């Protein structure tokens, strides 16, 4: 079954965010094997898992829709620069708006409706009570910039990468729930520059191969990969800009509370070529699940234990897990009889 959006829960302060049993069942679990292995793990972004799966549609709208849109608004009200688009990315922003609106209207027709008459577009979002008519390509006819307008109606962070000289540049985006990186800091950087801090992968030629693959991506053939880290509390906005609010929470993990306090944070990253601008759209759709909820699936708990146990030290450090990684391994050991 499909999960319908439920009422607003919080990703800060009192952290009322929770996963229903259905949401747990459809969680995109990221570890394909028992031992940790570094890989780019890209695959075509085509439907899998059947009705209700997180992979059913191009965009996944789930029970957390209203909560995530409310959280995004809080972030942007406080820090408007978390959404930015360089001047030459205007057309790419319209590309993104078109791609998101057409796929939402097609896949979730109960919630979203798009009517196109020439360049006059009418957009209806029943979940957020939005109903607007605008001229496609003319930003002055929208209440916000096209990137902010559509970005505030879809779960996930968005980056638009300009392609030139055989490289990709991070020239536009809306990033309100990052796993410890800053759009304002990375803006304008090339593919290798913004991946600079990633350990281990540079010597293996992974970035050269990934860049070659991404720059050759064609219209109509999106791809996806899963990325993961751990987050203390169900906090969406773990950005460097707000580090003072969440960094210290890593010291609050104890052997007693690790199951409820530590969350597996999974990013479903989707890359899609934009037809009008030749930009690459990069969607980072974040899912959070507490270890306690994850352990309701014994196979996930066992596999996660083996993966955490074999995680190389540089990655423990890079992902910011040093202070509580051993507590996570100890907690998960109880679900792995062969440990």
């Amino acid at each position, binding site marked *: 079954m499909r999960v319908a959006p439920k009422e607003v829960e919080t990703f800060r302060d009192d952290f009322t965010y929770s996963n229903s049993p259905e949401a747990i069942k459809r969680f995109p679990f990221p570890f394909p094997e028992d031992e940790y292995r570094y890989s780019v793990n890209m695959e075509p972004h085509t439907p899998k898992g059947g009705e209700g799966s997180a992979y059913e549609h191009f965009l996944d709208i789930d029970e957390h829709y209203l909560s995530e849109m409310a959280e995004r608004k809080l972030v942007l009200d406080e820090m408007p620069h978390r959404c930015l688009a360089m*001047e*030459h990315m205007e057309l790419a922003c319209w590309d993104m708006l078109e791609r998101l609106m057409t796929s939402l209207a097609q896949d979730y027709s109960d919630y979203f409706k798009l009517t196109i008459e020439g360049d006059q577009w009418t957009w209806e979002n029943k979940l957020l009570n939005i109903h607007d008519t605008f001229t496609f390509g003319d930003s002055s006819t929208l209440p916000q910039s096209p990137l902010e307008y559509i970005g505030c109606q879809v779960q996930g962070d968005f980056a638009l990468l300009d*392609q*030139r*000289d055989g490289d990709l540049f991070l020239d536009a985006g809306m990033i309100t729930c990052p796993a410890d990186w800053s759009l304002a800091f990375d803006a304008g950087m090339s593919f290798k520059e913004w991946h600079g801090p990633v350990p281990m992968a540079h010597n293996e030629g992974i970035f050269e191969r990934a860049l*070659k693959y991404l720059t*050759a991506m*064609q*219209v*109509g*053939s999106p791809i996806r990969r899963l990325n993961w880290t751990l987050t203390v509390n169900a906090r969406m906005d773990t950005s460097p800009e707000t580090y003072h609010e969440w960094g210290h929470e890593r010291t609050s993990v104890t052997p007693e509370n690790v199951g409820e306090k530590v969350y597996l944070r999974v990013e479903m990253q989707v890359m899609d070529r934009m*037809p*009008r*601008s*030749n930009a690459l759209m990069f969607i980072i759709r974040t899912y959070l699940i507490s270890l306690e909820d994850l352990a309701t699936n014994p196979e996930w708990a066992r596999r996660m234990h083996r993966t955490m146990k074999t995680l190389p030290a540089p990655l423990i450090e890079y992902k910011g897990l040093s202070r509580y990684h051993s507590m996570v391994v100890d907690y998960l050991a109880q679900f792995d009889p062969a440990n």
Partner: protein
Amino acid sequence: MSNQIKVEVASICQVAPTIREFTLEAIDDALYPFSPGAHVVVEMPNKKKVYKNAYSLLSDPTDTQRYRIAVRLQDASRGGSIYMHEQVKVGDQLLISPPSNLFSPLWHAKKHVMLAGGVGVTPFMSYIPEMIRRDADFELHYMYRSLQTGAYKHELSEQLGDKYFDYDSDRQTRCDVTALLSQQPLGTHIYICGPDSLIQAVEEAAQTLGLPASVIHSEEFAAPKPGMPFVAEIKSTGQQVDVSAEDSLLEALEASDISIPNLCRGGVCGQCVCTVVEGEIDHRDQYLSDEEKAAGNTIMPCVSRAAGERLVLDI
């Protein structure tokens, strides 16, 4: 490729003595909008073998009803351009790839100078509507031989006015590339589409004037030209693949069920690069740098061939 698009040839017209324009219309869904400078790979279902050539889209990028391409009859054609000129009729169906772009304008440039040679004017036909929409500063310098090429020169001249410059070498007017480049303000990007000789002349002039290579952009799809037959040996299996005079190495490998990732099939995109462990290479692509070509251990099998009788590929 499963993502190919089926189109119908809606009209054909002769736009220069050796150039025909084809209008392709969608059969099932609307076509994708595309970005200026994009191309499609057209599959030609010839009886003996299937040709696949890349052609720039020259229609307005916002038109999702039809694409237009222009094909020049090549002197040394192996059959692709002859097929398009002689076999393809109005009402025929063709398969094309989705649009790809290896020659996009750099929108942060202060000024854009386009240099077109003959049928190389085609990608600029899709640049111009978007440049006008964005109110960009640009010039088109169009070099052709009116006895053979020169498609669209009247409409371009009329549309662009003082942004348009033409040079007809059949009437002894030539472009002084060095003088042209030396007049450009700082922040100008130069785009060249045309024969290799034009690209080289511009690159040399740029180097002499001290312009950085990063402001010079070029694209030339080399439809694979025939050569001498040779044998390609696959190192991992020892398999011997005969490459005839008319086939490209990529086509011969595909005919032997050895699939190599590829996109443009014209020596530009770099996807099909293979490692060579033995044998001399006749490089014919735009992708590898001069240093890589001189090193002699990589080949673009879509257009390049063996210089001798045998190549050993590390695949």
